[in-house]
């Protein structure tokens, strides 16, 4: 497994040690998962969900919502009702 590429896709910085351990463990798991290749799935549809899905969209209706203070109450850094992040465009 190209661990660096995958870690970059999911935005996690790994230490050298983690890269080694996780690579080894995941190679073993992927090998274990090869057993699914034994099964003939040519005419089998995929199950995406555990229940029969049906359209559950409802009309848009204005309802109660959080105040700005509440919505931002867990933000790690904020200023003037906005979340502060480092500069993105120089």
């Amino acid at each position, binding site marked *: *497994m190209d*661990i660096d590429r*995958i*870690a970059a*896709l*999911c*935005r*996690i*910085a*790994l230490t050298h040690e*983690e890269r080694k*351990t*996780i690579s080894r*463990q*995941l190679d*073993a*798991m*992927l090998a*274990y*998962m090869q*057993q*699914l*290749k034994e*099964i003939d*799935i040519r005419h*089998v*549809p*995929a*199950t*995406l*969900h*555990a*229940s029969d*899905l049906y359209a*559950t969209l*409802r009309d848009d209706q204005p309802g109660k919502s*959080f105040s700005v203070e*509440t*919505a931002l*109450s*867990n*933000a*790690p*850094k904020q200023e003037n009702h906005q*979340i502060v*992040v*480092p*500069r*993105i465009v120089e």
Partner: protein
Amino acid sequence: MGALFFKSAKDLSQMLAAKSLSSVELIQALIRRIKDVEPKIQALLSFDEARALRYAQESDERRAAGKLRGPLDGIPIGIKDIIAEEGQPLTCGSKILEHYISPYDATVMERLKAAGAIPLGRFNLDEFGMGSSTENSAYQKTRNPWNLECVPGGSSGGCGAAVCAGEVPLALGSDTGGSIRYPAACCGIAGLKTTYGLVSRYGLAALASSTDQIGPLGRSVVDLGMLLQIIAGHDERDATSCAVPIPDYSEAFNTEQRSWRIGIPKEYFSEGIDGEVYRSIAEAIAFYRKKGHIIVDISLPHTFYAIPVYYIVMTAEASSNLARYDGIRYTHRSAEVMNARDIYFKSRAEGFGSEVKRRIILGTYVLSSDHQDAYYVRAQKVRTLICRDFSQAFNEVDVILSPTAPTTAFKLGERLDDPLQMYLSDICTVSVNLAGLPALSIPCGFSEAGLPIGLQFIGKAFHEQELLSIAHIFEKEHDFNQRFPDID
């Protein structure tokens, strides 16, 4: 044993009704119990005592005024720390949410409060529900009250250990691949994983959205029914919530017993099952046969593929769900951040534990464009075959009986270095989640070492009442749920 803290919710409800106990007295007694046993059990992550006592006071006032909200009014319920409760921490067992305070109530919490039940403490879990031993919590390792060197099972291990140790009579957990039933089995209590769509997931931090479900853990199936009555039902805030009629679950325990057709799936009794577990389950089968129920040998041929399918589907969904913990909006943000890119990479590196990283990476891999067909799409097709196995079995039987786990609780640390071995703990439970079915675990024996053994019943979708009824037949003629650990 007459200790108040080991009484069932039903008994406590009757004591409250008879005015031989007040809700405030009950909460005070449990606070003392928690202080006595918590140093050893380590199940509790946070507990707002003052608020619990205030709710109890309000419940007692309602009772005095004749304005009770139902049978669980004044009864404390432990909450797995993955279900949002307004004004309370919601760590999900993760450092990334260490300082998070939930601004809202999950639907199940609204329903508990509307019924007068008292949220009592937030209990430990494997980080985001990823684990079978509760050892993956970023905060503490919960112990099994029957043997402090053993795990309580997971991921709802804090709830399981707390009910077992007399800290709380009932609890709400969540089950994505066995996370209610497995700790129930390890701790010798009852636990119910509900049909997918029966209980709203609104306010449950998402692990694998296509299998996550909230459900009760307690000391008897009667108590499970009482709590299920409150939490079951349609919620428009969860698009997967089903608008099905909710029966009166207490009727499960009153009705005349019919003869049930009970299926025994041979795949759940193959190698790997411990001899003592096998014997206890065989005795349970013999019990049902003797009571006049019909035992039918069945086969669920794709059972052995359930673990690889589950760990592909779950990690894929988890990698997507956990993308929300970005270090920007409401989570831990690394102090080392120099630029925008660092926020994601470093905050997530610092905030997530090793199992979470492992699963996000595996999930990202099986979803990546080069490998999606070989893993994710294939797994979803095999999932269909697993669902079909159950549909075919339920043409012949009303319920399926199996062990909840192939072994009793293992020792702390024993499976930590071998994730694949840890995943195999879930062999008897994950198929049910993939198929969205309800399943229940009750204690059916003890090993020679004194560890509980779990008996699992799997039912047809939305047939929780049958599961409760069938499990009750066993429970009322055995005393396994009347045995309590001696925590000295």
